């Protein structure tokens, strides 16, 4: 029994005591194979998953190292079954290999004949395999490369892909390091990706994922397809590529709802690629439009399901995934692993801290009590109407107005889901409003105005959810949200609460994030999920009653 900072639980979670003197060292040691699940203030929770262990295998760690790490940092005895399981799981990776055979093309090979026999008998993979070439080799049709990898992962025998990649159409791309240089970890990330072939680079928000993408493109020197979450993000990618590489405006194309350009480097949005008309995807041609040498996926953890299917057919092309977290709300981490590739790089935690990953943000949930009349309306309403009713209660308007007055002079965003509510608020606050219907030009104008400080208050709908950098926002007030994924919620908050540059006195501004919820309704239930997620991400969190808001103490937080 030692006095280590780590507690290994039998349910395969690892508890790391943050304040322990060995905590940083331990964190570094377990990061390659354990996924960070929660990071509240005192104890961080990591989890051992097969994928995490396979990622570690792909990165060259072996089971002995993992077991040794667990044993040396663990405070208490480590359950033996867990150690056995770790060794067993890790030994499964790489027993099967996808290889290029000189005469038969793509083959599945193994030195472990029983495993191969087991796999050949599995129903899930039966249709994907061709003739048995010899005892250890089976032919695979090239078009099934992705599907086969997916299926093998599902039956627990992930294959290592040695089949190589096509070079794609060459296109000169250079990094233009004028006045800036690639940070060490960015260079390392690009390099590990390139040597691994395909895979995911995990970097925290603001750590310069775009630059890693650019560095990878400079390595590939080939035509590149970049898939991003939305149009605004596409523009940011374009700006960044123009600034950081030798690429010119003419070489970069945008493929989105409004513009459809295909150039040597094309940036497309997930939305346009996954648009379905009459049961078919009309924009699939994009993938075959050029002989792409590299495909970059931004925000892999948000990759929609249809793109996975399309990616399955692109296994011969190099794929780079960029993300801040491998955890997906829909549990499709396995598809990321098998179709995009294993984790190739993970930023050292120290750097993450230096980047201010946990922003000094003050999250406050304001609970308003519904008047009896509204409560009665709510109580008797149809279940599907309930959230809208609860979220759009007129009580909230007054609270918003109070908050806006209190933070007068600080750039403030009011975010909501329902247009009527936003209309009402915009009118009450006398502020400009951006919704899905606002023309892109007008949107850009308003965002720019907000960034430059001309506009101090903006009412926005969910269009602001993704990939819009508004680092100047100091106060955000959320009146209603999309009641689905808390991951999406957190994404929104993360975007808005980017830590700004330190002020002249060296102190970072403290962002205030208010969420206004109706007490005793589904609104409050959703808020609870959000609260949990934020707390797990390490944000400070408070709940106050709308009536107590006037008290001066709440203001000083």
């Amino acid at each position, binding site marked *: *029994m030692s006095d280590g900072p780590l*507690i*290994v*639980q*039998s*349910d395969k*979670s690892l*508890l790391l*005591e943050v304040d322990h003197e060995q905590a940083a060292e331990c964190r570094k040691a377990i990061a390659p194979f354990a996924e960070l699940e*929660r990071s*509240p*203030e*005192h*104890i961080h*929770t990591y989890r051992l998953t097969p994928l995490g262990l396979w990622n570690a295998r792909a990165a060259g760690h072996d089971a002995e190292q993992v077991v040794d790490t667990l*044993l040396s940092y*663990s*405070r*208490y*005895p*480590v*359950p*033996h*079954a867990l*150690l056995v399981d770790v060794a067993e799981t890790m030994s499964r990776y790489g027993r099967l290999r996808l290889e290029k055979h000189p005469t038969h093309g793509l083959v599945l090979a193994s030195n472990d004949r029983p495993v191969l026999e087991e796999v050949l008998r599995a129903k899930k993979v039966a249709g994907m395999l061709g003739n048995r070439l010899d005892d250890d080799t089976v032919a695979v049709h090239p078009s099934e490369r992705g599907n086969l990898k997916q299926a093998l992962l599902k039956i627990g025998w992930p294959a290592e892909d040695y089949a190589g990649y096509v070079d794609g159409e060459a296109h000169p791309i250079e990094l233009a390091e004028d006045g800036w240089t690639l940070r060490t970890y960015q260079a390392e990330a690009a390099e590990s990706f390139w040597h691994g072939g395909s895979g995911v680079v995990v970097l925290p928000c603001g750590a310069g994922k775009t630059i890693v993408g650019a560095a990878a493109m400079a390595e590939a020197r080939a035509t590149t397809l970049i898939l991003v979450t939305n149009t605004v993000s596409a523009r940011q990618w374009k700006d960044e590529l123009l600034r950081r590489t030798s690429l010119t405006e003419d070489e970069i194309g945008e493929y989105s709802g409004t513009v459809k350009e295909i150039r040597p480097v094309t940036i497309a949005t997930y939305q346009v690629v996954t648009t379905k008309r009459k049961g078919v995807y009309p924009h699939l041609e994009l993938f075959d439009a050029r002989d792409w040498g590299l495909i970059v996926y931004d925000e892999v953890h948000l990759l929609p399901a249809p793109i996975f299917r399309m990616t399955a057919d692109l296994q011969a092309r190099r794929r780079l995934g960029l993300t801040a977290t491998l955890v997906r709300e829909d549990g499709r981490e396995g598809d990321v692993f098998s179709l995009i590739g294993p984790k190739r790089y993970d930023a050292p935690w120290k750097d993450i801290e230096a980047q201010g990953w946990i922003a000094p943000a003050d999250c406050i949930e304001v609970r308003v009590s519904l008047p009896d009349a509204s409560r009665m309306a709510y109580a008797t309403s149809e279940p599907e109407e309930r959230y809208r009713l609860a979220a759009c209660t007129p009580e909230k308007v007054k609270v918003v107005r109070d908050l806006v007055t209190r933070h007068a002079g600080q750039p403030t965003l009011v975010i909501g889901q329902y247009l009527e509510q936003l209309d009402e608020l915009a009118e009450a606050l006398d502020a400009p409003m951006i919704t899905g219907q606002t023309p892109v030009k007008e949107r850009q104008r308003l965002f720019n105005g907000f960034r430059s400080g001309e506009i101090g208050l903006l009412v926005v709908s969910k269009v602001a959810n993704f990939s819009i950098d508004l680092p100047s926002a100091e106060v955000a007030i959320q009146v209603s949200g999309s009641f689905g994924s808390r991951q999406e919620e957190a994404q929104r908050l993360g975007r808005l609460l980017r830590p700004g540059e330190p002020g002249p006195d060296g102190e970072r501004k403290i962002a205030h994030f208010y969420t206004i919820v109706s007490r*005793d309704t589904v609104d409050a239930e959703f808020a609870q999920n959000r*609260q*949990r997620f934020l*707390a*797990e991400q390490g944000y*400070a*969190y*408070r*709940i106050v009653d709308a009536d107590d808001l006037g008290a001066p103490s709440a203001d000083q937080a």
Partner: protein
Amino acid sequence: MRNSIARALDSLTRGELSVLDALVVAGQTNESELVTLVDADPAFVVATVRRLVDLALAWESPEGLRPLSVVGDSMVGGVEAGVSGLRPRSAQPRPAAELLEVIAALPSGARALLDHVVDGGSTAKSGAARIGLRPEDAETPAELLIAHRLLVPAGSLQPGLLAVPGEVGLALRGGRTTTAPVDVAPVVAAEPRSARLTGSAAVGAATDVVRRTGQLLEWWGTRPAAALRTTGLGVRELRATAAHLQVSEPEAALVVEVAAEAGLIGTRADTDGNPVWVPTDEFDRWRDLPPAEQWTVLARAWLASPRLPSLVGERGPDQKPWNALTPELAASGMPEAKAMVLAVLAGLPEGEGLAAGTGLPSLVARIAWERPRRPRTRPDLVAWAVAEAAVLGLTGADVLSPYGRALARGEDPAPVLAALLPPPVDHVLIQADLTAVAPGPLEPDLARRLQQVADVESQGAATVYRFTPASVRRALDSGWTTAEVHAFVLAASRTPVPQPLTYLVDDVARSFGRLRVGAATSFIRSEDEVALAELVNHPRSAGLGLQRLAPTVLVSSLPLDLLLARLRELGTAPVVEGPDGVVRVGATEGLRARTPRTRETTDAARSAARQAAHIATAVRTVRQGDEDARSRPASASAPGGGVLSALRDAIERRGAVLIGFTDNQGVVSERSVQPLVVEGGQLTARDTDAEADDPDAERRYAVHRITRVVPVGSA
């Protein structure tokens, strides 16, 4: 007697059995000769002989050391059971030198046949071989062996069977019963393991099994597990248990079985009368013990248990899967297998455990040497014992833990284990995501109270609790006040209590008890508030159990029909309201009773006749009985214990007796015989006056026909 001999033989090692076998071959001998017969260290032979005599498997007769006569027949099995396959020596054995001469002169075919017969148990069927030829006339190798008296008839009781006398076998094997040393026990393949790994694995498993047992029983205490009709635990229940404990089904079965063996669970009837498994009173005592002692209770129960949890889920002979807790799921050899596994592991050097791969087979071989005679399922039992010991934390990475060593020695393992267990912690860390992490085993009292206010989310060495509205409400339900919850959380937490938790508690308390529920049998409602007020205050309404819930509603504890009558007595005019709010009125129906069943009319004459018939039957039966008793022949004088014991005595002494017996024709006669074996009601005996090698001199007598036994000769 045969059983007790078998039992005694079962407890011998292969080496000891080999010594006994040599004694049987020798027939009658002394220690110094026996030492030369057994291929082993003389000291081992001498020690073994002492033990055999102590066990009464051999005895010092006046003529020399002898095995008990039945022992020879009980020595079954092959070489692995210590049986050399040699026959007992003849009464007058030929000298070894003479035999070797004869054997050396044998042609190769005959020699090969002889070797083959000796290796195959020293007996052979005579087949077509002729008996009684001179060596010159022998035509086949078999006839040659017979002519040389290397193969002799095995006796009249086994016609056609030839045997190689023991002295021939001994001569062939160079004067010893076996060709290899018998006192060398197989070595257990062991290899050293790092103490950090094994200690961690063992203590980790031990804490896990204690925790899971507690967790299981707490769970069954609130949600009893349905028992099968055979009192077993069904597949579905086991699966649910495994899911709840987050372990595999075999491991869950082991936890359940061990808890049952420790007397921590039992069956009772649930509210519907179906049998269910629930914790026993003993569990409450167990729960209050320190973890090390809890483990000791479980480990001791396991060690003494014949249960086979490892079979759960496998299919039995009837193709039905075995269920946990089924009474038949036990093997009497299991406790011994466990004890021997621990003993062998304890015999390994400190820090060494079973080698990977070869360790288990070598352990099985070693235990087969220690107890070669039974049971046939030994390899399975040993493998299960090893696997279960690992789950229980007796071993870690197949190395016996220090406290496991203490347990194997019969000492109290609790203090040893307690020193290895992490000390309990008295605080938790409460975080803003409403979790409380206990960074180690919590003090039991704190843990119990925390479990009332928060749900357990992750278990292990540490415990993660989560506060939810439901868990806080549960605490309020069980009588906590808001202030108490706040105070408890503040006292238990080593870090400041996060604001959202404080808010959560207050918020739950705010809505707690907003709805109130009570019991009433009927209600009275009226738009006329005054009428209700008057009713409540009526001097004669006290018996109605009225309670005013609202100005227009009263409830009563009386049932509807009674209340209606009373209210009418009070001069009011109530009407009945149906569940749909509609008034029900109507004429009451007159009361009716059920028509009584008509009885059979009594008839004096018939009952008198019936009575007479009864008596007549009874008398006839008694008379018949008397008649039967008279006509039955007087029972023959049963062969008393005297006859049997006299015969057995003579067999042990190898003395002659005079027996009086009645033959098939009823003729009573006497014979002087030397009894050989008593078995299955038959005495096998040899006529005392017969020639030494006359195979027809052995005869069988039915013991019950022997009327008397008189020792003759030496007696």
